[in-house]
């Protein structure tokens, strides 16, 4: 069973899952970096994005429209949550945790109310169906597509953070919010934008992921721990950390499930606990 083909295919699957995780977790990491908010509703953005995308695909048949609509709709929800609720709780970690879980429960119930309890799958557009063959191996086109999307998003995020004025402001706010505010950066507006962007990315991940994981009740709390593991391992607020963390978690999860099915979550969370024991701020994080 453990042949070289097994290793290549599992590595590929791990990479593509890691790519999807990056879409989900990069936003969570940025949100934490700028606002220090532990957002337990982040998995809900993923799930709601998937549901909105599903409805749009049913109406229009367009996958691109589904991704766009999901991202915009959930981005607006994220912005509303930040502006109307989370902003009232600066620095109150426990309050933020309870409030975001409250929203997560409400979103879960609303999704159940609107879309019912049946699992659905978002149809893959025709040009992304099928597989690319290389000798005896075949790689599903859709998984390659996910990897490409994640690479493009990562590159854009990196360019935006590293090369633009807004990016410099965000980095300043991550380093020291008070100081950034002091030198004239509008941190509240920046926070709002980052929160919206994070929700957008998670929702886009939900639509894209909905085509290969499915869209179903409970998806929110299923992906949430993964996003947190990525962010914790990579270091809170670090984009390179989110990239490395996503790949690491994608691979660990995939090999764990394939090699030790009984201990698969353990093989994911135990290395993370180990990393934290050695480096409490994660691989790329700063205290």
């Amino acid at each position, binding site marked *: 069973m453990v042949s070289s083909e097994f290793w290549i295919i599992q590595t590929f699957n791990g990479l593509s899952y890691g790519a999807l995780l990056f879409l989900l977790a990069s936003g969570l990491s940025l949100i934490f970096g700028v606002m220090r908010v532990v957002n337990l509703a982040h998995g809900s953005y993923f799930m709601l994005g998937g549901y909105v995308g599903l409805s749009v695909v049913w109406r229009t048949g367009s996958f691109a429209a589904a991704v766009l609509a999901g991202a915009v709709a959930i981005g607006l929800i994220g912005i509303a949550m930040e502006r109307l609720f989370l902003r009232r709780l600066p620095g109150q970690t426990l309050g933020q945790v309870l409030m975001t*879980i409250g929203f997560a429960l409400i979103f879960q*119930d609303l999704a159940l109310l609107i879309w019912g309890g049946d699992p659905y799958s978002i149809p893959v557009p025709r040009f992304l169906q099928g597989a690319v063959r290389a000798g005896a191996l075949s790689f599903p086109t859709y998984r390659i597509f996910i990897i490409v999307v994640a690479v493009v998003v990562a590159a854009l995020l990196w360019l935006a953070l590293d090369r633009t004025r807004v990016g410099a402001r965000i980095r300043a706010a991550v380093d020291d919010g008070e100081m950034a505010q002091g030198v004239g950066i509008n941190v509240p507006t920046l926070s709002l934008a980052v929160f919206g962007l994070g929700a957008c990315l998670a929702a886009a991940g939900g639509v894209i992921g909905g085509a290969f994981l499915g869209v179903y009740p409970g998806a929110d709390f299923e992906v949430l721990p993964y996003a947190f593991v990525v962010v914790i391992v990579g270091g809170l607020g670090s984009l390179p950390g989110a990239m490395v963390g996503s790949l690491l978690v994608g691979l660990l999860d995939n090999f764990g499930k394939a090699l030790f099915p009984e201990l698969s979550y353990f093989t994911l969370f135990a290395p993370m*606990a180990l990393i934290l024991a050695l480096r409490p701020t994660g691989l790329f994080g700063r205290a």
Partner: protein
Amino acid sequence: MTRRRPGMLVGVTVVAALAAGVAPWLPSYPLTLLTQAMIVAILAMSLDVLLGFTGLPSLGHAAYFGVAAYAVAILTTERQSGFVLCLIAGIVTAAVTAALFGLIAIRATGTYFLMITLALGMVVWGLAFRWVSLTKGDNGISGVPRPDLGLPWSLWGPLPFFYFSLACALVAILLLGLIVASPFGMSLKGIRESESRMRILGYNVWLHKYLAFIIAGTFAGFSGVLWAYYNGFVSPVDVQLVTSVEALLMVALGGPGTLLGPAAGAAIIVFLKNFVSVYTKRWLLILGAVYIGVILFAPRGLAGAFHRRSS
């Protein structure tokens, strides 16, 4: 604190006596809920030692509750073990788990502590969910019998089991009350207020936090043992993130650092969850609104709101 202790003692005695007196006339459903409230109150109070008294917000407290419940479920269904063995095994399992996890978690502070306890909680959930040969996975372990204490009343009846749970809750309140009122408990509050000050004063801050972590885990385990017997069924739901957060809500609702506040918070949430779910399917929606409402309107919990009015 010391000044208020006699009042609290009287309060606990009155409430316990009232509950014990009313219980025989209650129909079995409210009685069952009251029993559940007693058991969950122990969990909430154990978390309060960590969150309210030491200032450490744990996001994985269900883990210790859960490992103890699983220990009881496995021992009773596979080995037909008796109550004393199960009680000891459950509590020791929880204490050992907390001692292990504490080594990793105590190094971190603030949000990192929150995240690490979340991750450690997920380790336990992952094992409960996937280690099917031991835990039966998603199906959970059913058929946990009620304990036989050698008493003339069978604990299968709702009334004797209620009195049993009430007695256990009183023991927990007494022990935890003694702990938080002791010099050790005072040092914990000192750490909550200012860690650096306590360090300068020569206290071993790490050891204090570590011991608080283990104590909290141990009492969560006590609660977990009772839960397994009460529910007769243990599943990954008992160790999942939402359960941990629910315990946090109980503490926040009741008022962190008051011990009895979180116990009241636990009772309120238990009754709310069960009553609301009788009347509407949308109880998650209401529970979510409760989370948000508590944070917006009673940030210091009911004990805090009550205190503000009386002073």
